[in-house]
C-alpha cells in the first residue's frame, strides 16, 4: 500500500464543489420522492423520520435488494408489496431487551408503582413495543408488585410482524443469561427462570403474563390516542422522528395521560426539547421518568409541591 508522500499532498479532485452539491441534492430528492411514493401507495408515513438513520436504512435495503440507487428502490417498492414489507421491518425493528437499563425498571418499581397503587384500575400504554421484550418486563414487574391483576397494558407497534412475535412470547434461549442479570439488577424478587419454559424453539414465556395485555397495531405518526393512561412507556422510539413529529407525538402522550400520569422515556430522551417541558416534573431525572403536573409559575418552584 502506498502511503501519501507528504501530509500536504494535494487531493485529487474528481468532482467539483458544484458537482458534489448537486449529487447531495439529488440524493435528498430521491429520498423525498421515495417516501412520498411509500406514503401514497401504502399509507406509511416516514417523511418526518430523522434523516440520518433513515438514509442508512434505505441504502442498506437498496444494497440487500441488489439495487444500485434509491430511485431503483423506489421503483421496486411501488410495484412489489413484499419489498415494502421488508423495508417496514428494516425501519421498525430496533434493539430491545428484557429489563433493558435495569435502573429504569428499578425506578419504575420503587417510584412509579406506589403511584399506580392509588388507582383502582391501571391502564398502561407501551408505545412502540417492537417484539415485546419491554411489555413482558412490565408484566413481570407488575405481577411481582401485586398490581398486574388490575392492570391492562396496551402494547402497540406500527409493524404487524413484530406484534405477532410479541404475542407468541418466544425469545432466544441464548438471551436468557443477559435477561436474568438485568432482571436481578432491576430488583426482581423471584427467580427469572420461573417465567419461561425452555423449548426447542426458544424460551417460551408464561401465557399468564399476557392475559391482561392487548397487542394492537398503532401508528404513532398518523393515529390518535385511543384511551386515557396512568403510565406511558415509550423508549427509544421517538429518537427516529424529527423534532416537529416528536412534538406532535408528545402532544398525543400529554393528552392521553391522566393528571399526574407518568411518562417513561429512553435514557437519552427527555421532555426538554418538546412543547410540554414545563408541564411535566421529573420524578427521576436520571431514569427519564416524568409526571404530568400543573404548570408551576416561574419563581414559585420551591413553595408548592408536596412531592
Amino acid at each position, binding site marked *: 500500500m502506498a502511503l501519501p508522500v507528504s501530509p500536504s499532498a494535494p487531493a485529487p479532485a474528481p468532482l467539483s464543489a458544484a458537482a458534489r452539491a448537486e449529487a447531495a441534492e439529488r440524493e435528498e430528492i430521491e429520498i423525498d420522492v421515495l417516501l412520498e411514493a411509500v406514503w401514497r401507495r401504502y399509507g406509511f408515513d416516514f417523511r418526518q423520520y430523522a434523516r440520518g*438513520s433513515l438514509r*442508512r436504512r434505505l441504502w442498506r435495503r437498496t444494497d440487500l435488494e441488489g439495487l444500485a440507487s434509491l430511485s431503483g428502490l423506489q421503483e421496486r417498492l411501488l410495484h412489489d408489496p413484499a419489498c415494502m414489507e421488508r423495508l417496514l421491518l428494516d425501519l421498525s425493528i430496533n434493539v430491545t431487551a428484557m429489563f433493558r437499563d435495569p435502573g429504569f425498571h428499578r425506578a419504575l418499581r420503587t417510584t412509579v408503582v406506589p403511584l399506580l397503587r392509588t388507582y383502582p384500575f391501571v391502564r398502561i400504554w407501551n408505545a412502540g413495543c417492537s417484539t415485546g421484550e419491554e411489555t413482558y418486563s412490565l408484566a413481570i414487574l407488575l405481577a411481582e408488585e401485586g398490581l398486574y391483576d388490575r392492570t391492562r397494558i396496551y402494547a402497540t407497534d406500527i409493524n404487524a410482524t413484530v406484534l405477532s412475535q410479541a404475542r407468541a412470547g418466544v425469545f432466544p434461549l441464548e438471551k436468557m443469561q443477559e435477561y436474568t442479570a438485568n432482571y436481578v439488577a432491576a430488583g426482581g424478587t423471584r427467580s427469572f427462570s420461573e417465567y419461561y419454559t425452555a423449548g426447542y424453539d426458544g424460551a417460551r414465556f408464561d401465557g399468564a403474563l399476557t392475559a391482561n395485555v392487548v397487542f394492537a397495531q398503532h401508528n404513532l405518526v398518523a393515529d390518535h390516542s385511543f384511551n386515557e393512561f396512568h403510565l406511558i412507556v415509550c423508549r427509544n422510539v421517538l*429518537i427516529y422522528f424529527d423534532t416537529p413529529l416528536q412534538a406532535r407525538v408528545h402532544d398525543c402522550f400529554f393528552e392521553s395521560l391522566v393528571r399526574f400520569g407518568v411518562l417513561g422515556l429512553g435514557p*437519552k430522551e427527555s421532555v*426538554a426539547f418538546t412543547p410540554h417541558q414545563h408541564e411535566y416534573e421529573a420524578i427521576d431525572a436520571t431514569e427519564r421518568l416524568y409526571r404530568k403536573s400543573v404548570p408551576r409559575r416561574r419563581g414559585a418552584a420551591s413553595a408548592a409541591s408536596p412531592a
Partner: protein
Amino acid sequence: MSCRLITVGSSWGGVEAVTAVISSLSPRTAAAVAIAQHRGPQRSALASLLTRQTPWTVEEAEDKAPIEPGRAYLAPPGYHLLVETDRVALSTEGPVSYSRPSVDVLFESAAAAYGPRAVGVVLTGSNRDGADGLAAIARRGGVAVVQDPATAARRAMPAAALAAVPHALVLPLEAIGAKLTELCPPSAAVA
C-alpha cells in the same frame, strides 16, 4: 469553506488520543465536535473524564440536542450518534463493524448533513470502522484527517482509513488539534 462540525472516531487507545486532540483544539472554534469512541453498553463516566482532562465540556449526546459551536457531543453507550443539519440524533439500530456507537455511522451522517463543512478525524483502533465514513466525508468535499498510524496505539483503524482515503491529511497525534483549530478558526477570526 470553513468547517462547522468536527467528527472524531476512535477505538482501542482512543480515550488518550481524543484527550490529546481536543486538548490542543481551542473551544472557541466556530465548529462543534462529535465523538464516536467505541465503548461497551454500560453507563460510564467517560464524558466527565474528558471534561476534566480537556478545556472542553464534553456532554453525552441527548437526542435532538441543538448543535452549537464550542460544544462537544459524545456518543452514549449503546447508541449510534448521528447528526442532522442542526441537531444530534441517536439510534439503536444494530451494531456496525461490531460497534455501537460506530464511527462510520457518525461520519456518514456528517457527510450528508454538513458536506464540505464537515471534518472527519480517524484515530487509533484495531478494526476498520471509520474508513467508509471518512471516504463519504471526502466524497462530499469535507476534510479527511487520519492519525499517523506510526503514532497510534493500534494502527489498524487509521491504516484502513488511509487505504480508503489515500489523500487524507496524515498527522502525528500531537499535531492534529492545532490543524483542526486552523481548519475551523474562531468565528471572529473568520470575519
